[in-house]
């Protein structure tokens, strides 16, 4: 299978994602330029973190207008797995591929430190290989990560099991002190209705090697690889 990592100008985690997918997972990776209009040959897509286009208006707002985005939309519509990490999550909400918005952290500051999240749904490619209630340690690094959506949207997300990750403490308890940024219902990640498009604020690629303190994040990528392998014959990569 081939992963695609979209390179938006100003993204700064694209190389990190490529390293993890290529060197740690041993997968094939294609860098997708923001001006490309095709995702032919890509089986799973990552929108990496960073500050796309400087993030000067609202985070992710300009990237959501990039030339590659129609292809991303089509890829998502056809059921291709898409993972938006941090700025990638912000881009997906701005592109309205995921519901809600990411607001300034409650602290009004950029925050960089490890957090724990609890797996709340396994109905996505990225969590299919995990268990409900699994606790993952990954770092956050963002200034605008407070997830917010209208109450009716939040209710609908909960009802449909589309909350994928929730901030928790090391033992998996969702307590106020474990919510780093003021996210509604401690939401750290959500999925689209099909479950194939997932966005989250913590950085799984920064927690994919034990040397860096945690390898929990790697399980998201491994899960998606296994999910794809199960979905289609091994000789995949066919154009969509």
């Amino acid at each position, binding site marked *: 299978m081939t992963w695609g990592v979209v390179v938006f100008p100003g993204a700064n985690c694209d190389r990190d994602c490529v390293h993890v997918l290529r060197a740690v997972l041993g997968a094939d990776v294609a860098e997708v330029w923001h001006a490309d209009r095709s995702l032919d040959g890509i089986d799973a897509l990552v929108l990496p973190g960073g500050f796309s286009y400087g993030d000067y208006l609202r985070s992710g*707002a300009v990237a959501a207008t990039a030339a590659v985005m129609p292809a991303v939309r089509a890829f998502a519509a056809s059921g291709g797995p898409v993972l938006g990490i941090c700025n990638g999550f912000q881009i997906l909400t701005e592109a309205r591929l995921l519901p*809600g*918005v990411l*607001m*300034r952290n409650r602290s*009004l500051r950029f925050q960089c430190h490890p957090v724990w999240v609890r797996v709340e749904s396994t109905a996505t490619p990225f969590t299919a290989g995990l268990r409900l209630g699994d606790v993952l340690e990954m770092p956050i690094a963002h200034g605008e990560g407070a997830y*917010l*959506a*209208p109450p009716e949207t939040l209710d609908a997300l909960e009802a449909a099991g589309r909350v994928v990750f929730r901030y928790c403490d090391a033992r998996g308890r969702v307590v106020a002190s474990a919510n780093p940024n003021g996210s509604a219902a401690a939401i750290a990640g959500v999925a689209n209705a099909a479950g194939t498009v997932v966005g989250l604020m913590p950085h799984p690629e920064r927690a994919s090697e034990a040397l860096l303190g945690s390898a929990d994040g790697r399980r998201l990528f491994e899960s998606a690889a296994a999910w794809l392998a199960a979905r289609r014959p091994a000789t995949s990569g066919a154009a969509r």
Partner: protein
Amino acid sequence: MPTVRVTVMLKPGVLDAPGQAILAGLRALGYPVEGARVGKVVELAVPEALRARVDEMCERFLANPLIETWTVEEPEAVR
């Protein structure tokens, strides 16, 4: 070229953390202000033909309708 001014504010009810911080800051400096709300203003030089589409630009890009409202001011009102 006419200039329009777009003002984008958070919807009432959405937590305005920057506004709260400004309020606290002003009070700390000894100004007993009662409330503060923060927004963005964007001044656009738009060709006449585009004038009618400014609202659409706000809806699609300059504001996030989920949490923000906007007002568009007429050229005459700016400067």
